[in-house]
């Protein structure tokens, strides 16, 4: 007898599962210590927390939590549009920028299609493409640098989407303006290019990809409120693209995908330039400190531009575990095929110092 299991998409069966950073509470319980003693540097979150202005706005928004959200997110899309110099019709909101990746795959991928991305690219692209029965072509990096030329050369007749995380998570490398311009001058018109700029606000002189949106090219730029704005828990991210492309993506979106507290909180966070500036300063100083220490410890690391750094420790699983025993949660990268590396998010200076102290202990053993 046929069962429904035989009918469901075969490719879903063996799909890899995304492994989030190990939570604070779970770690505290396992170590039998107070959660306040745990330092989590595992998910590239904002160590300062959300903007106080966002908190204020959220508090006020609780009063209407029983009403469905504004499905068109009128105010938030307007504010984002104004910030990035586009119109509301150029903005789509996702339940996290991860959901915009889902819209892209949903709308453009059929079973048997391809996406092209880089080796070690943010793993969501591959996971989500697989759900839609598409194959992921991963192009080898050179010293972790994304090889955009090779990505172009790898395009097949089945290629629909190209994902470029800039900078990439977990490696931290960024492709510069020259490389991007070269890429854009050669990429075929029928392919949609996604520049995932989750960490855009941390970058000192970020390459300009929005010019290609302005030119009406098939480009989607992804940004998020999860990083610099410290609102990862609220789930709101967005895509910026030419209006026609946004219209297509809207077809995959559920009307109430972004909750009302997130809409209100994000709106206030966007306006709180001071909190963004403070966060960037803390991250800049923390990153410089960590890189100095890694250099002094003769640890290989990938020069970083955002709020995380990838370092070479040899046995990543062992160091991860022993750091955990010292109440510091970092991210092991075996799932990315980088078993000798760890990713460390930049925390407050106090957290960074404790992290370095623990790392020194672990590595001297």
């Amino acid at each position, binding site marked *: *007898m*046929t069962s*429904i299991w035989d009918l*469901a*998409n075969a490719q879903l069966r063996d*799909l890899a599962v*995304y492994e*989030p*950073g190990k*939570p*604070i*509470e*779970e770690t505290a319980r396992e170590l039998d210590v107070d*959660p*306040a*003693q*745990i*330092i*989590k540097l595992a*998910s590239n*979150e904002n*160590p300062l*927390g*959300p903007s106080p202005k966002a908190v204020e706005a959220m*508090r006020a*928004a*609780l009063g*209407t*939590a*029983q*009403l*469905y*959200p*504004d499905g*068109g997110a009128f*105010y938030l899309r307007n504010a984002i549009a104004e910030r990035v110099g586009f119109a*509301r019709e150029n903005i789509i909101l996702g*339940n*996290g920028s*991860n*959901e915009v990746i889902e819209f892209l795959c*949903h709308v453009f991928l059929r079973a048997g299609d391809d996406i092209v991305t880089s080796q070690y690219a943010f793993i*969501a692209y591959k996971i989500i493409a697989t*759900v839609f029965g598409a194959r992921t072509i991963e192009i080898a990096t050179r010293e972790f640098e994304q090889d955009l030329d090779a990505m172009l050369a790898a395009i097949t007749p089945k290629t629909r989407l190209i994902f470029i995380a800039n900078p990439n998570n977990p490696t931290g490398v960024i492709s510069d303006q020259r490389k991007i311009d070269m890429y854009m001058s050669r990429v075929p018109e029928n392919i949609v290019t996604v520049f995932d700029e989750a960490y855009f606000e941390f970058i000192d002189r970020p390459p300009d990809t929005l010019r290609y949106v302005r030119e009406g090219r098939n480009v989607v730029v992804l940004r998020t409120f*999860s990083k610099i704005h410290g*609102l*990862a*828990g*609220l*789930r709101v991210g967005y895509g910026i693209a030419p209006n026609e492309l946004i219209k297509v993506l*809207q*077809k995959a*979106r*559920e*009307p*109430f*995908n972004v*909750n*009302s*507290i997130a809409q209100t909180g994000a709106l206030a966070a966007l306006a709180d330039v001071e909190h963004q500036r403070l966060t960037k300063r803390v991250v800049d100083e923390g990153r410089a400190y960590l890189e100095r220490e890694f250099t002094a410890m003769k640890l290989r690391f990938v020069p970083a531009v955002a709020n995380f750094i990838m370092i070479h420790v040899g046995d990543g699983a062992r160091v991860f575990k022993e750091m955990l025993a010292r109440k510091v949660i970092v991210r092991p990268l075996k799932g990315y095929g980088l078993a000798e590396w760890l990713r460390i998010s930049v925390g407050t200076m106090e957290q960074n110092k404790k992290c370095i102290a623990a790392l020194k202990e672990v590595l001297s053993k």
Partner: protein
Amino acid sequence: MNTKSISRRRFAHLVGIGAAAALVRPRVSFATEPSPARSTSSSGGIVRLSANENPYGPSKKAIEMMNGSYNLCCRYPDEHNDMLIDALAKLNGVSPEQILLGDGSGEILKFAAETFTGPSAGKMVVADPTFESIAHHAEVNGAEVVKVPLTPSFAHDLAKMGAAAKDGLIYVCNPNNPTASITPKNELRNFIANTARSTIVFVDEAYFHYADSPDYESVISLIKDHPNLIVARTFSKIYGMAGLRCGYCVAQKETIEKMRPRVMFDSVNCMALAAAHASLQDVDQVTNGKRLTNDAKTFTVTELDRLGYKTIPSQANFIMFDCKRPVVPLIAAMKQRNVQVGRLFPAMPNHMRLTIGKKSEMEAFLSAFKQTV
């Protein structure tokens, strides 16, 4: 995507000083575009009786819990996700692997349509009229959608729905939106027992808490015997959390595993998780909500009856009544008088769907309605 590590955790602990200190300080469109600033409250002179929302708001405990959770906003909510799943598993007497959370139960409907219907997976069979979202998702997925009219007593015509199905999924909305009517428990029970296991029976119990007829029951208890049964619930209705977006479904583990790959990692936000968890501990909210809604409903139905308008017996927080004329111009006329009522359901063009708000809101509706007709 969705974490599989399910473990026992207590929420209150995390919300307290611990975590705070740790911080050191397609084809068919659902999305409407563009949306002008809309009224967000019945207080601004607008009486909003259009979306089956709960006028009493979230539980005080939920508000308190959310107010204690701002510091968690900068963290991805994986752990809280697991904690709510644990609580829901306990509540429903199932294991955590049998629960899937969604960004509203609307997202659960999407997962189910995408997983179990389509050109190769099978048809989508729905009642007419019913809540339309799952059928839209099936269409997006390229599935054939079969609509089976309700019976004269506004129950699902299960015999015809069963006959129309081939693999795929049969959607049973109980109580049904927009009619607020129920499908009798014996009929549904037999239907589930007799449906081929290659066809999913999806029972949407969004309005479960409002149903008090002896002829109504939840079918969650049948899940253990039926791998093809999925039951959906939401925090948008009796729990007053529509803006926060949290819903879930219960099914056998294997059935859940089929849908799980579609679940976006961390799809339920930290505020919704905190509020949902707190709401489950507030039994008074459910009792009071039911009582207040029933009182306002009885009042409204009696008044409408007095005016000569017949209401379909309602087992939900909304009613559908025969307005004896095309509803579309009425909807517009009511809007002119600052009262928002339910949209047109094409299968019943002379009926109006009306959410049961507070008694004062129902009075405002009745006075506007009288003036209009």
